[in-house]
């Protein structure tokens, strides 16, 4: 019985790793450890290698003893076009829980090494009419199933994957910005100049799944953190949110999780009246919103402190 979970059949083969990583990693991700790294351990039993020990001596030990770090989990450009097999990622954003703490945005900026003006995840104050009550609305890329941005890309630099994610390959993007024009949700940003945090990401191997290092003259946007998803981990905005606003999950297995709790997606939609933005456009977003009813926090209009920012609506 115990073998069921654990029969690793571990190989160093990268493809196997990716599959296994998802399988095992997702079992117990929120526990103390992501098991995915298990799979990265080599299994050539009996092979002796030399290591430097803590007391400064070189000793020969069984290679199994050595514990490896996570390898990078983002797939290379070509593989990143396929998507994670069998998955269909969806996000649910519970508007009743958002209080504009902006932790999601901070985490997103930090983990993607974004410079100040390229913000992938924005939190808007929604107040459509005087007679309505204002609320906060986080808005990542909606990863539409019929993405207008992908339709217009002349070079397939932005593409829709089978697992629902829309990515940008900044090694191919020609910088025409047509996708920015086509996106009805204005989620895309452009690297107008040499990206600021190049030193931070120096030496990093670019993958469309990582989204960095950014390149001058190319478009970028929220990517649902596919490198995290490959490890069975939740995207950074989901884990960073102190109020559990964001849920991420696989539509095919009808479950979404905000880190603290995991719920059935269909039940959540039914109980809370989930909806998508601008359904009338026919873009079929992968991001669902739960209306701001029974709010966790009273709406407090914070002055958006970010330098030079101001709101008009």
């Amino acid at each position, binding site marked *: *019985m*115990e073998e069921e*979970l*654990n029969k*690793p059949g571990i190989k160093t083969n990268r493809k196997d790793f990716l599959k296994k990583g998802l399988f095992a990693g*997702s*079992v*117990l991700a*929120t*526990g*103390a450890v992501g*098991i995915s*790294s*298990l799979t990265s*351990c080599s*299994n050539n039993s009996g092979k002796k*290698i*030399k*290591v*430097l*020990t*803590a*007391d*400064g*001596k070189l*000793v020969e*030990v*069984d*290679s*199994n*003893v*050595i*514990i*490896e*770090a996570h390898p990078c*989990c983002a797939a290379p450009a070509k593989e990143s*076009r396929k998507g994670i097999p*069998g*998955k269909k990622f969806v996000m649910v954003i519970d508007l009743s829980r958002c209080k504009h703490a902006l932790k999601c945005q901070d985490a997103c900026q930090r*983990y993607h090494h974004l410079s100040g003006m390229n913000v992938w995840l924005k939190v808007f104050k929604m107040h459509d009419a005087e007679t309505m009550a204002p609320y906060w609305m986080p808005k990542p890329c909606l990863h539409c199933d019929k*993405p207008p941005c*992908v*339709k217009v890309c002349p070079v397939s630099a932005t593409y*829709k994957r*089978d*697992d629902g994610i829309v990515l940008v390959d900044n090694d191919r993007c020609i910088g025409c910005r047509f996708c920015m024009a086509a996106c009805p949700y204005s989620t895309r940003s452009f690297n107008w100049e040499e990206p600021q945090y190049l030193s931070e990401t120096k030496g*990093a*191997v670019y*993958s469309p799944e*990582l989204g960095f290092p950014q390149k001058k003259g190319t478009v970028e946007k929220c990517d649902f953190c596919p490198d995290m998803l490959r490890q*069975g*981990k*939740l995207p950074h905005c989901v884990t960073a949110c102190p109020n559990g606003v964001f849920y991420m*999950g696989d539509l*095919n*297995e*009808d*479950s979404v999780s905000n*880190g603290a709790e*995991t719920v059935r997606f269909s039940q959540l939609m039914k109980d809370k009246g989930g909806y998508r933005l601008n359904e009338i456009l026919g873009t079929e977003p992968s991001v669902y919103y739960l209306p701001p009813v029974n709010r966790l926090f009273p709406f407090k209009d914070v002055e958006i402190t970010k330098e030079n920012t101001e709101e008009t609506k």
Partner: protein
Amino acid sequence: MKAMKNDLPYHKSGIGYRRIFFISIVIGALLLINNFTIAQDAKDSSSLSAGQMGKLSFTMNLSSLVSNGARSVKVQVSRKENKKTVIVNDVRSPFNLYLNEVKAYDASDGTGWIGKLNLNYEGEAVFVIPDDFNKLTAGLHEYTFIVKMDSDPKYEDAEETITIADAKISIVFSGEDSVKSATAILTAWKDSAYIPVPEKELKLCIKRTFNFLLFGEAGALTDSTGQVSGDLPMDLPGNTDGTIIIFGRLEDDETYGTVEGGISVPWAILPKKNPVTGRTLWSSGDNAPLVLVISSVVIIAIIWGTIFYLVSLLIRIKRLGKSP
């Protein structure tokens, strides 16, 4: 040796980096041998040597997970800054993991130094203990993990210990075809056998992509036989072969850490499949709608065919010019 970088997981390793790494380990080791207690309590500034002056201190949080016998130890590093807890991810020195005591690796029983890792960008280092190693240490029923970090240019040396008693969870099933009930049993090693542990909050979980879905009664405690039961939802999509993984989970227990044990069962409905996208306007270039491909090819062929004909006229004009 195998590279053990966990600094920024997506970064290529640098040679210079590794050298610093070695040197710091050597220095750290010397320090450790001379005065074992220095790093024991990094927060106690009175015991700091001169080399530790002006460095920052951090909190190291250790947690243990046993999942169907597979062990791992996670280190999370954070510190207080202006009364706020912030992640520390810029510790340059590696974190060393020892089992039972701080010493060199003992191949006979698997104790001593068993690995080292650098922090990742999220301020974590996860020691995943290989399967073979678990077999080697199967005779142990209490594990003391010691994590040490020393000789970092920015941070004070630190050491943290966690002791985990051996426990495991197994799952049994009962019920008809339409209603299935799962029971998780928590047992722990005592004296010479695994005996049931009562009064622990045991969660019944179903594995999902990111996390687990709970079923059964929320907050249920184990009874005197160490058991918790719950009815399985029968309409839940599972893996493509119709199976789902069900497990019991004891979370962050003082004695046992986090313990999980489970099994794969064939009682899930099949997951929805992604529809075949086919030729759409948002597919890749070679998957364009046929109407579009054919019509554009025809139009281009006609127009450019005519253009080539016109160019041939130019050639004919030139030939006419040459003939008398």
